[in-house]
């Protein structure tokens, strides 16, 4: 009997092993959706796949994703960028100011410029002067926070409707759109309440209804980045600057210039993320509104293994957990999700003959299940920590396969022998 199961499992392993990684991820995704539906059924909540939840998840993901994308450009060119938070802060301030003066699209443009400005400072320090990159990043964060406060207290007096910590409201708003037909169709399907089908429809509806144009713009940047970095000569040059600048230089790549591009673009994207917070969500600049999203973006990027689609997934985990957290009593169901997920992972490990791993996962699965079963809700403090714990957990489980650019963080000087 056991022999049959193991051979079945081995057969499955072989089949999956031969699949392309794209197919594997697709399979994993569908499996994940199925588990979500299952959990919803058992836990009796509708929030995990509700359109509202996923719409919110999308909106909460984008700023983090933009910061992470910014981090990608910088790290791929070989420069560590801890200053993403500061660049994002600049983006929020400039975005609000320009949005107030000229309108939301100007807000996006200026947010981009503001972030790029601080990116330029970081580039000058780290590329031209070859200063320690972490140092520069930290300094940028301090500088950005102080400068924005300074500007606010200078420009926003009581008459304008703002103050030292808050800007007046931007003019107008960026419109939203519904994907024609698809949105309504999925919405109707989601209302039917059919197991799995409605859940998937709900997710689809959430991501196609009342989507901001800015969201679309931001999402387009992901495949655009993939294409730019992996399908163009320019992208190849940028990546070579981060992998092996000495070899690249010998082949005629203007390494220093590529690094400049990488870091300035990084700042611009982080700034864009900041302006998203203002233009799509808050409507104003409020001091402290970035709330660490720049750092989270950095984490998401590392989590995503320095690739655009990976960082989308990483940011998505944050966005989704945050969206769930803001909806009453939804985080409790996550416990069940973790339990079932770990159980499946444990079974997978079993088939792969990783008995020790399988045992650990099984134990944790049991623990989560017991926790879910014996409590009615999760204490508030743990709920707020969910996205961070999840990121740490995933990093821990999957970390061995992370590959960062080989010459990331290295101080490079032109003409240096290696």
């Amino acid at each position, binding site marked *: 009997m056991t022999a049959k199961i193991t051979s079945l499992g081995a057969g499955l392993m072989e089949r999956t092993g031969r699949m392309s990684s794209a197919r594997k991820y697709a399979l994993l995704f569908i499996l994940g959706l199925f588990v979500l539906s299952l959990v919803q059924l058992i836990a009796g909540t509708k929030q995990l796949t509700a359109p509202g939840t996923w719409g919110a998840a999308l909106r909460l993901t984008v700023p983090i994703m933009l910061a992470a994308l910014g981090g990608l450009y910088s790290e791929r060119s070989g420069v560590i960028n*801890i200053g993403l938070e500061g660049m994002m802060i600049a983006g929020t301030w400039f975005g609000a100011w320009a949005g107030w003066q000229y309108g939301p699209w100007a807000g996006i443009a200026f947010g981009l410029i503001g972030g790029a400005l601080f990116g330029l400072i970081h580039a000058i320090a780290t590329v031209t002067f070859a200063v320690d990159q972490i*140092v520069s990043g*930290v300094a940028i*964060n301090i500088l950005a926070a*102080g400068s924005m406060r300074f500007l606010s*207290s200078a420009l926003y007096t009581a008459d304008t409707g703002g103050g030292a910590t808050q800007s007046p409201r931007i003019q107008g708003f960026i419109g939203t759109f519904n994907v024609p037909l698809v949105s309504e169709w999925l919405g109707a399907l989601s209302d039917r309440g059919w197991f799995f089908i409605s859940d998937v429809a709900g997710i689809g509806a959430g991501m196609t209804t009342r989507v901001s144009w800015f969201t679309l713009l931001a999402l387009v940047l992901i495949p655009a980045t993939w294409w730019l970095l992996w399908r163009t000569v320019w992208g190849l040059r940028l990546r070579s600057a981060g992998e092996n600048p000495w070899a690249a230089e010998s082949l005629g790549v203007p390494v220093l210039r590529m690094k400049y591009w990488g870091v300035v673009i990084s700042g611009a994207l982080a700034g864009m993320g900041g302006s998203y917070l203002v233009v799509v969500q808050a409507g104003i600049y409020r001091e402290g509104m970035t709330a660490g999203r720049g750092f989270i973006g950095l*984490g998401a990027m590392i989590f995503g293994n320095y690739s655009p689609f990976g960082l989308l997934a990483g940011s998505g985990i944050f966005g989704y957990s945050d969206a769930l957290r803001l909806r009453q009593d939804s985080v409790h169901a996550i416990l069940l999700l973790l339990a079932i997920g770990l159980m499946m992972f444990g079974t997978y490990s079993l088939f792969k003959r990783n008995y020790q791993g399988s045992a650990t996962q099984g134990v944790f699965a049991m623990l989560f299940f017991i926790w879910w079963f014996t409590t009615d809700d999760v204490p508030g403090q743990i709920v707020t*920590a969910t996205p961070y714990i999840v990121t*740490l957990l995933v990093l821990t489980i999957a970390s061995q396969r992370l590959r960062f650019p080989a010459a990331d963080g290295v101080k490079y000087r032109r003409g240096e022998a290696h």
Partner: protein
Amino acid sequence: MIKKIGLAIVAPVVAFTFAVGVAVLALLAVGVNPIEAFGLMWDFASTPTSVASIINRSVPLYVAAVAVAIGFQMKLFNIGVEGQYLVAALFAGWVGGSIVLWAPFHVLVVVLVAAGVGALWAGVAGLLKVTRGVNEVVATIMLNFIGFSVIGFFLGNFFSVDSGALNQSTPPLPPSAQIPGLNWIFTLFGFAEPRGTELQGFVIIAILIGIGYHLLVWKTRFGFELRASGMNPGAARMAGVNPKKMILYTMLISGGIAGMVGLSTMLGKLHAFTQDFPRGLGFAGIAVALLGRNNAIGMALGALLFGFMERSALILDLNDIPKEVVQIIQGVVVLSVVIAYEVVARIVKNREIKTASDATQASTAGPQEVTA
């Protein structure tokens, strides 16, 4: 020797002047007389009260800087000092407030608990790095946020004492756990006694930490291995250094010191972990470590500088001058100091290369010397 010291000072001096220049521009832009502003700041900061305040402010910064610097020696980035010191302070406060012991012993227990919890919190990141290869930057950042949740959970549910003033805190530390102030030093030297600020006794411990750091890094085998692992990990491994052990130990020590960052305030002033325990010291400590180039004395000067800037900023507000200008100086100073250091280092190196090449040319011109 004088040249060496001179060179070491040139960089920070130039950088500081540049930062001041930027501040001058910023002040001018909003219509403030910079000379007047700086004059106010200097006058205000030279009173004994201010001096005591400045030293008090710089102590936690210094301890945080040392914690970060230990990591930096090995190219490990402990960005988690913020979370480490807050979690450590919470538990230390609770333990300290719940027991009563003979005074020096009680203080020692509080210090040990703080260091232990800090080490533990950093150790998680270190463990994850050596066993699963998790990048310590991300891990410590995540742990910072998770630390907040832990604090909220424990303070809200178990540790707090209802003081009725809407300010939750751990039970107050009994007098046996409080470190006496050092204001008498001022009167000893003939100065007026600081009013309203007690020069915190923890500064002595901070100095000891600095000395300990210097000895550890420069005079012990562990310190040698630490620096070697940072400068040339390959060579260090060849020499028998176990990189995983080094990482773990470094994180533990860094976290342990980080845990003590909040003790100066807790033992000397607040006597409990309250809802508005000072924040942001972790990140400021990173800046100070960078400013001081991971050098025990350099960091002390950097911490004092930051303390000075923050204290003197208060007088600006009283005179309607935007005090964010001080924050701008802080950011620019950090940036320009490191840039200046790099430039100076390169100038020195190039000069050495030139001297060496000149010497080689001279010797090739003359009769060949047989080298042993």
